[in-house]
Every structure is written in C-alpha cells, then in structure tokens.
C-alpha cells in the first residue's frame, strides 16, 4: 500500500490532530473503550482479525478505535503490526472436527447427526431498528445454553463428531481435495504468482476483502460460472491451536481460537472412468464471519475449474482477476495513491493536449482566416511555430 506522502510538516501535524478530533467526535459523548469495541462489535473484530491475518481481539479493538471505525484502515494497522512480530513457527493444522461448536447448520440434511444449532445469528431477526439501544438498554442475556439448539433432543454430547463433508465422503459422494506437491507457499513471505495452487488461493481468499469476495460469489450464482451450490455445512465455534515443540518432542496446546468454517457442496462431475461425485468449495475465517466464509467457499469452487475441465470464461473463474484484486490493502492503496501529487505528470499531459488541440485547430479548413485569429483560447503551439517557419523559408 502506498503511504509515503511528503508535505509541510506543520500541515501534516495539524492533519493528525484534526483526525484525532474528528474520530473523537462530540466530547460530551463518553469515549468508547477498546474493551467495549472488542466485546460489543464482534463482527467488526472478526473481519479485522481475518483480513488483518492476526488473531488478537484486543489489538483488533484497538485498531478499530484508532481507525475511527474504518475497517480497511483497521486491517491496515493490524497488517502493519503483524509484520513486526517474530515468526516463531507454524502451528499444527487445526482439526475443525474437534470444534467446540456454537453454531452449526446444514442446508442439505435437516436431521443431520448432532442436530442443527442456530447459535447467535441475525438470520431470524426482522431487521427492525431496536430503539431500546438508543438508551443503552441492551438486555444482558443469561441462561441461554438450551436455546442454542433448534432441537436439543437431536443434539449429542459431542456435536463435533460429525461433518457433513465426512458423511458424503464415506459414501464416496464428495470428491476429496487433491494434495498439493510440497510445502504450501506462505503468502506472508512469498509474492503471489500464477497459476497459484489451491493452498495459496485459499490463503489469499481468507485475507481477501469481504465485499469483493461477496460480489464475486454473487456473480457466480447469477450465472457467471454456473455455480449454485448447497450450503453443506456452516459452523462456528472454538478450536485448539497446537504447536509441535521439537525441543520437547511433544505437541503443546497454545489455546483456543474462534473460527468459522463453510463447506459448500457443488454440482457433480464424472466421466466414463470415474463415478459422479459432488465437488466442494471451502471457506474459513477467524471469529464469526459467516458472509465471508460462504463467499470464500463459492469463489474457491469457481477457481477450481481446471481440476474439473470446466470452461473458465467468467471473471470469478479467472485466478488473476480474483486473486490479484481481492486484497483490500492492495486495492485501496492503488486507488488512494491517486491522492499523491501528480503535478509533473499532469503538466506533461497538459502540454500534450494543448499541442494536439492547437494542431487540430490549425488543420481545420477555415472559410475566413480571420475566424482563426478570433480564437484566443487556442494558444500558439510549437506546431504552429514550425509551420510559420516553413512558410517564411519558402
């Protein structure tokens, strides 16, 4: 992202102070605390952590406060901070089968083992403004454990035991992901190159801008990639992060993180050699980020066209189009760079356009030569000067 801006030191200092005042707003209103933001804006926090690629609710809250609620700016702050952190090592792959589930729904099996668990969701709200919140009268919810499950009788002690994708794969109905050769590329260290493997694509999509991915996903559903899948499973909950310590020759649990995961079940493929199977799109994010993981899963599947010999003519199927433009910081940096001074570039364009206009005016057939002289807006150009010189030489 372009950030270097030169200018008057005093003016920049004043701009910083004005920004602080603008973000603080009316001093009569109580200052919002980082803890309040971290706790009471969980969806913004989830998005900042996911696209910022750093799991830390407190720092995400701090970034949100510092950015005055500008999510892309907050993501930028987190990404910048992230680059200063020591890269201690890679955690073991997270086992989402062992997720401590808070929400788990499937659009393909009504009575799936473990049951449907609605959890905290906007899905059934009526989108009516709750004016109680104006007076800070948000009800504090307690004793809601049993309200989480639609049908507690179908819930098991271990909701984490079953995944819809596993059930389908047990019957051979869902294709398995093909293992990529070698270690996955770490997108934090390696620049994106094309064609990108699926492991790389998923990293880029996980950090990708939610709005961009949602529009791309929407385009696939509307026909620009023949992609209208079933939501096989959407789950949100807590998983353990483990790290293998070579010095101790043991795997240590570092703690739990909240994640969201989506398995989309897409149209099937088959051939005379292989039985038909459903295909899969996958989405994963930090925190609770349902719209993002669903969009990610749709776009992931759209980008798998080469695996299934599908025509790749829609924008969402083009790796370079999607991956090179999905990062909010890349995109906003290049758009924002237009604010930087372009005085010299523009001056050269001005010179050129004036010259072209003058030349075009000079070449236009004029009935009365005096008309040309009566056009003061067209300044004498270099081309004109040459013509005069030629004439005078003749």
């Amino acid at each position: 992202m372009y950030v270097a801006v030169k200018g008057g030191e005093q003016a920049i200092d004043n701009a910083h102070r004005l920004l602080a005042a603008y973000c603080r707003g009316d001093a009569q209103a109580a200052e919002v605390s980082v803890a309040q933001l971290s706790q009471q804006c969980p969806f913004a926090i989830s998005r900042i952590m996911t696209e910022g690629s750093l799991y830390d609710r407190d720092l995400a809250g701090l970034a949100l406060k510092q950015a005055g609620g500008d999510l892309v700016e907050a993501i930028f702050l987190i990404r910048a901070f992230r680059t200063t952190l020591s890269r201690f090592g890679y955690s073991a792959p997270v086992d989402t089968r062992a997720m401590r589930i808070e929400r788990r729904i499937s659009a393909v099996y009504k009575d799936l083992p473990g049951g449907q668990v609605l959890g905290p969701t906007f899905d059934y709200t009526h989108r009516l403004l709750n004016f109680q919140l104006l007076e800070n009268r948000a009800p504090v919810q307690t004793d809601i454990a049993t309200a989480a499950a639609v049908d507690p009788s179908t819930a098991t002690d271990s909701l984490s035991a079953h995944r819809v994708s596993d059930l389908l794969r047990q019957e051979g109905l869902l294709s398995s992901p093909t293992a990529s050769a070698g270690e996955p590329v770490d997108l934090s260290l390696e620049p994106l190159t094309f064609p990108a493997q699926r492991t790389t694509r998923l990293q880029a999509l996980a950090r990708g801008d939610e709005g961009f991915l949602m529009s791309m996903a929407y385009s696939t559903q509307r026909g620009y990639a023949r992609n209208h899948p079933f939501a096989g499973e959407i789950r949100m909950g807590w998983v353990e992060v483990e790290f293998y310590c070579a010095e101790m020759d043991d795997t240590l649990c570092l703690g739990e993180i909240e994640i969201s995961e989506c398995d989309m079940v897409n149209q099937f493929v088959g051939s005379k050699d292989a039985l038909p199977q459903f295909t899969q799109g996958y989405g994963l994010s930090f925190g609770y980020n349902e719209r993002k993981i669903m969009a990610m899963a749709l776009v992931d599947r759209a980008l798998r066209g080469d695996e299934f010999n599908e025509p790749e003519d829609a924008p969402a199927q083009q790796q370079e189009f999607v991956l090179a433009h999905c990062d909010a910081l890349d995109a906003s940096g290049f758009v924002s760079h237009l604010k930087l001074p372009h005085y010299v570039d523009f001056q050269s364009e001005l010179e050129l356009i004036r010259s072209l206009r003058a030349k075009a005016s000079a070449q236009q057939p004029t009935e009365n030569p005096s008309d040309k002289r009566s056009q003061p807006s067209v300044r004498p150009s270099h081309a004109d000067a040459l013509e005069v010189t030629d004439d005078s030489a003749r």
Partner: protein
Amino acid sequence: MTTQAPTSAQAPTPAQAPSAAEQSARQFRQILDAQSYPGRALSLMQETGPLDPVGLSPACQILVENLVNRDVQVAFAASLPSAELARWVRLTLNSEVVAVAEADFIVCRQADLAHLDLTQLGLGTMASPELGATLVIDYQGPDLTAVSAEATAGCVRLTGPGINPQGPVKRLNLTEIDAAFWHQRADCNGSFPMGFDIFICRDSELIALPRTTRIQLEGDAACM
C-alpha cells in the same frame, strides 16, 4: 546519554507494565528509529519482566529477540558463550545458530572484530539488497556518545541520510574499535545498495550504523 526519538509508539510514562504486544511494538519501533537516525543512542528496555541471563547486554538480547526467528539465521562470535546462546536461540526463538557466512545476523564483541572476516558477510544482491547481513556489536566500553565538541583521536564522525547536515557534528567515541575495521566496512559497502548494516549495543542502548552512513575517522581525511 539517551535521546528519545519522537514516536507515537512511546506511551507517556505508563502506569502499569505494558502488554507483551505493546512492548514488542515499542522495541521494534525503537530499532526502526535507531536505523532512521544513525548514530543516535536509543534505549531498548524490557518492562514486562527480567530478561533471562544469556550472556548478552540487555539491548543486544532484546534486539536479537525481536529480529531473529525461525526464518532468520544468527551466528555468534567465539568470545560469546556459544552453548548457552545456542540453547536460548533454539528454545526462545525457535531458530538455529549457523556459520557467519550463512547468517542474517552476526553477533560479536568488539574484540572479535579483528578476527572477523567481513568478506564472509552476506551483502545481498543488486536486486535484493535487503538480504545483506546485519552485524551486531555487543560493545563493552565507555559511553559511545560521550564525546567532546572538538575532534578527538579515535572518534568517528558520521554523515549521511538521517543525520542533519546543518545540525551539530555527529560523533561517536568508538576508540575500542580498530580503524582497520572501518576501512574493511567501506570496502564491503562500496557497491551500494549492497552492503551490511551495523547495530552497536551497549548496556541498554542501541546505535545503528546502516550501510548508507559515511564514517570518517577523526584525523583521517578519507570518508568511509
């Protein structure tokens, strides 16, 4: 003497110990500032608790802790306690100690400089000068910034990016480092942007001498 660079990362007298993340950010900022202002001594402090004793000065230990990890290789000169440091690097930083020629960071004391073959240091490439090595000198001697306004034998005079040419002359008291070292440094850094950078740590202070900083020995007309 410690000069605090004006940065927004430094909180004004925190009432309580900073979080690990905040401290890490502050330390990293100090390291960046040190490189931005060559020759300026900045404080590198640990506020969240005592450092594990590993045989390095506090500034040197904090610097290595901040910059060395599994993707960054470090080498230690012979005068440093290699076994303890190797264990510390493995356990705390999840990295491995390597030979000087392979290292991104080379940590030594000033006495080691006479034996250190600077031509072994990575200088990066024209396309990737950021791959040049960093030499960390864990300096044991008098205060580096305690110099008189007049030119003194053994002192070095600094010029270059980050040093105000209209400001007071920037000098460092580096009498413990032999003049031959500075000449070798000049040879290595001759093909800009390739070269290596230097950090000098003394107790809790950090001074950076990036490859762009020109060094002139007092009494020596040549600028290196």
